[in-house]
């Protein structure tokens, strides 16, 4: 029943019922706000208590999220789309990475190679990548082969992209095809030019079965699922030859193509399910503890944290045959948060390979001092670093998997600041306070960048030379004896190792100034280190030397690197295609450098005709033209060649010394088998 004045028109009643009417909603509002405030406060206080068992927070907050041992087949995977619902920023930053696109279904968005029908010739076989509508095909013709393969998946998206296809009569096995698309060079390359192998390897030397190799590290939740293991065992017991690449059959599956959230955070099914409860989520927000249903690598102790990355960035083998068999059935047992060493055996220089006549297979992947010289051994490098052994260094000390687009460079997953000295001086503050005093180099020069000396580029992989991840101090005498690259002469391309020892001793004391008595590669220490390594080194040494001669931050400007030109031209004859590619690239860099100083050597046009994978006769003809051009080039504008450059004062090559050193290098004929 309304009050009598309620039906009175508004204009005439406004003042009459104003006071009483105004009080009512104020009381209502005050009551509502008070009730809400009490409810929120009570909820915030009670939630962690009510959910104590649910949260089950670890007391020390270091072991939270450590999973039970389980094969990938049995794990509760959920997939990155589920993660995106609650972690959109993290999902977006991950989506920008090359981790996401490591393995993709072959469609228009994934394929970057040029499938335009241009033939790629190598070793008597013509590969023709072409399209048929939305299908990507690679035809192989020649040497008795006439097959057309449909590309079904791609591997890689940053430096190069490899292509996977089924093969007739091989069931669900996926094979890596023998040519790949090199993204930087924008060209097709046969696999023999990618890995550090010499000319003359068979066309199908690097034909790998995805299901027993790539699947493990290039996907999330891999389950190879071999289906004829018992049959292979029986055949082996009957004495019949068994080739796993040819005979094993798989019906593989993965939780997600590419390296997704759960590779680093562990299977997230339970995490997603339990966090659909909003009270649990807000209870978690009010605690500092880790959520035990998921792994946050940033919360793990340094060892477990590097283990997360090490599951792929650290070559490893199964600790037992039984474990290996279990892997190819049900997938790996390691999951993020666990101790990697309890599941795998990381490969080091002293690891014997269980292969007849090749038990030094792994040793050749390391420099003589045990430092890795191939990529995918970054984990080993960290484990060998004093900063890890005696400190708290982890991969996340420098790298970041998430972050804003303009803050983190997905090439290397590095925040921009970590490309500076910030990565090191965050701990080494005293050195950071006066870097020049420590380095003896100008503060803004390459010589004052911590990485230049303590993480030099001396690791081969994916057609590039990368930084070593073993953080160490350069030592000329030790590096010479171990026949491995030396940081100082990586930059001082015109210097010898004895010079470096003397200079280092003067800067950092006697322990760095021990005299260089011998070089492990057999070269005379009086020869400039870069040249001695380029000629007398083993394939990795030669590759590193050829690469570093063209570095764009060399302190040798203008014609000061001209003394390297004749050596690099001769290195175009190296039997290793990868080394020829680096030599060619460095020649271009020096040519450009000289052109900028008005020294018109003009090698680039000729180098355009040099195909490091091309037929030998074709390459030889180009090399002759390069030699002729160098010979005709007037040397009057150049500085005198440095001592130890194997050059006379007029830049004429000491051919005999050159041949002698090159013979030392070529004598090291053992292949560096890259386990990719």
């Amino acid at each position, binding site marked *: 029943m*309304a*009050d009598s*004045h*309620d*039906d*009175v*028109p*508004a*204009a005439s*009643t*406004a*003042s*009459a*019922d*104003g006071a*009483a*009417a*105004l009080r*009512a*909603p*104020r009381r*209502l*509002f005050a009551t*509502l*706000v008070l009730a*809400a405030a009490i409810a*929120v406060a009570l909820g*915030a206080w009670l939630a962690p208590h009510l959910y104590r068992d649910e949260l089950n927070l670890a007391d020390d907050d270091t072991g939270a999220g450590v999973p039970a041992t389980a094969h990938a087949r049995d794990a509760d995977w959920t997939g990155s789309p589920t993660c995106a*619902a*609650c*972690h*959109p*920023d*993290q999902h*977006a930053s991950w989506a920008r990475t090359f981790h996401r696109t490591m393995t993709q279904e072959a469609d228009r968005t994934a394929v970057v190679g040029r499938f335009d029908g241009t033939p790629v010739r190598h070793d008597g076989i013509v590969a023709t990548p072409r399209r048929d509508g939305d299908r990507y095909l690679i035809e192989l013709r020649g040497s008795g082969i006439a097959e057309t393969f449909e590309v079904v998946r791609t591997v890689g998206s940053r430096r190069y992209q490899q292509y996977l296809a089924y093969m007739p009569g091989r069931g669900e096995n996926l094979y890596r095809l023998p040519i790949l698309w090199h993204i930087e060079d924008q060209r097709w390359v046969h696999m023999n030019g990618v890995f550090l192998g010499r000319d003359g390897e068979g066309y199908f030397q690097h034909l790998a079965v995805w299901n027993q190799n790539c699947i493990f590290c290039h996907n999330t939740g891999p389950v190879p699922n071999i289906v004829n293991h018992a049959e292979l065992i029986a055949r082996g017991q009957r004495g019949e030859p068994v080739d796993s690449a040819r005979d094993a059959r798989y019906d593989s599956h993965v939780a997600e193509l590419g390296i997704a959230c759960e590779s680093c955070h562990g299977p997230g099914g339970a995490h997603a399910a339990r*966090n659909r409860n*909003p009270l649990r*989520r*807000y209870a*978690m*927000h009010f605690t500092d503890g880790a959520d035990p249903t998921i792994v946050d690598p940033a919360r793990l102790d340094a060892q477990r944290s590097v283990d997360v990355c090490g599951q792929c960035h650290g070559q490893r083998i199964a600790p037992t045959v039984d474990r290996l068999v279990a892997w190819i059935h049900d997938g790996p047992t390691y999951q993020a948060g666990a101790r990697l060493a309890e599941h795998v055996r990381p490969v080091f220089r002293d690891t014997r390979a269980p292969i007849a006549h090749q038990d030094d297979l792994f040793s050749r992947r390391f420099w003589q001092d045990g430092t890795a010289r191939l990529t995918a051994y970054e984990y080993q490098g960290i484990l060998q670093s004093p900063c890890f052994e005696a400190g708290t260094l982890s991969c996340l000390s420098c790298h970041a998997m998430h972050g*804003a*687009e*303009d*803050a983190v460079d997905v090439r290397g997953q590095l925040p921009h600041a970590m490309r500076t000295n910030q990565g090191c001086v965050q701990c080494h503050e005293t050195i950071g306070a006066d870097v020049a005093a420590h380095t003896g180099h100008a503060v803004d020069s390459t010589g004052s960048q911590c990485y230049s000396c303590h993480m030099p580029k001396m690791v081969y992989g994916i057609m590039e030379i990368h930084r070593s991840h073993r953080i160490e101090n350069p030592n000329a005498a030790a590096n010479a004896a171990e026949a491995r690259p030396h940081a100082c002469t990586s930059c001082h391309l015109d210097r010898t190792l004895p010079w470096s020892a003397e200079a280092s001793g003067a800067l950092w004391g006697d322990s760095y100034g021990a005299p260089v008595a011998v070089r492990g590669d057999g070269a005379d220490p009086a020869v400039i280190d870069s040249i001695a390594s380029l000629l007398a080194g083993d394939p990795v040494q030669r590759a590193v030397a050829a690469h570093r001669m063209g570095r764009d931050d060399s302190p040798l400007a203008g014609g000061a690197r001209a003394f390297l030109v004749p050596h690099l031209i001769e290195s175009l004859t190296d039997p290793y295609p990868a080394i020829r590619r680096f030599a060619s690239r460095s020649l271009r860099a020096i040519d450009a450098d000289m052109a900028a100083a008005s020294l018109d050597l003009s090698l680039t046009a000729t180098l355009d005709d040099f195909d490091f994978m091309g037929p030998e006769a074709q390459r030889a003809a180009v090399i002759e033209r390069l030699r002729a051009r160098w010979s005709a080039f007037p040397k009057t504008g150049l500085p005198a060649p440095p001592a130890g450059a194997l050059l006379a004062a007029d830049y004429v090559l000491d051919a005999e010394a050159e041949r002698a050193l090159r013979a030392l290098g070529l004598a090291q004929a053992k292949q560096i088998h890259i386990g990719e």
Partner: protein
Amino acid sequence: MAASSSSSARAAWRDDPSSRAAMRFGWAAASAFLFFGIGLELLHFVKAPFYVDVHMRREMWTLAHAHGVLIALFTIVYAAIAPGVVPRATARVRASWLLRIGALLVPVGFLAGGVGSAEGDPSLGIVLVPIGATLVLLAFLLVAQAVWMEKS
């Protein structure tokens, strides 16, 4: 004739304190949240990392802007028509208060939800949103009731 009717409509909300208050509030709130929207545009323009890089904050603040303007417009419309469609002064006063408080709580809740938000969830300030939304809903119900109860 039209001018006369317009002037009488103006007089209606002017002479009713609660409608006048709603009208004042509505225009002020619409201005404030439009201004806030321009601020958000500016944050986009300069790519302010604390805004563009945090998905939850961006979503919450966008919702604050949108709801702030929208409910402010409702409040203006309400103020303009209330004297005509809600005959009971008590109901008008209640609806006006509920609408104004709701119009404030909903966007402020979204705004606060985007400040200090935890991963995947808005901050606890978000609880203001359902409270505010309830108040707005009650205001709508009061008006609806008044319209239904009005004698022809």
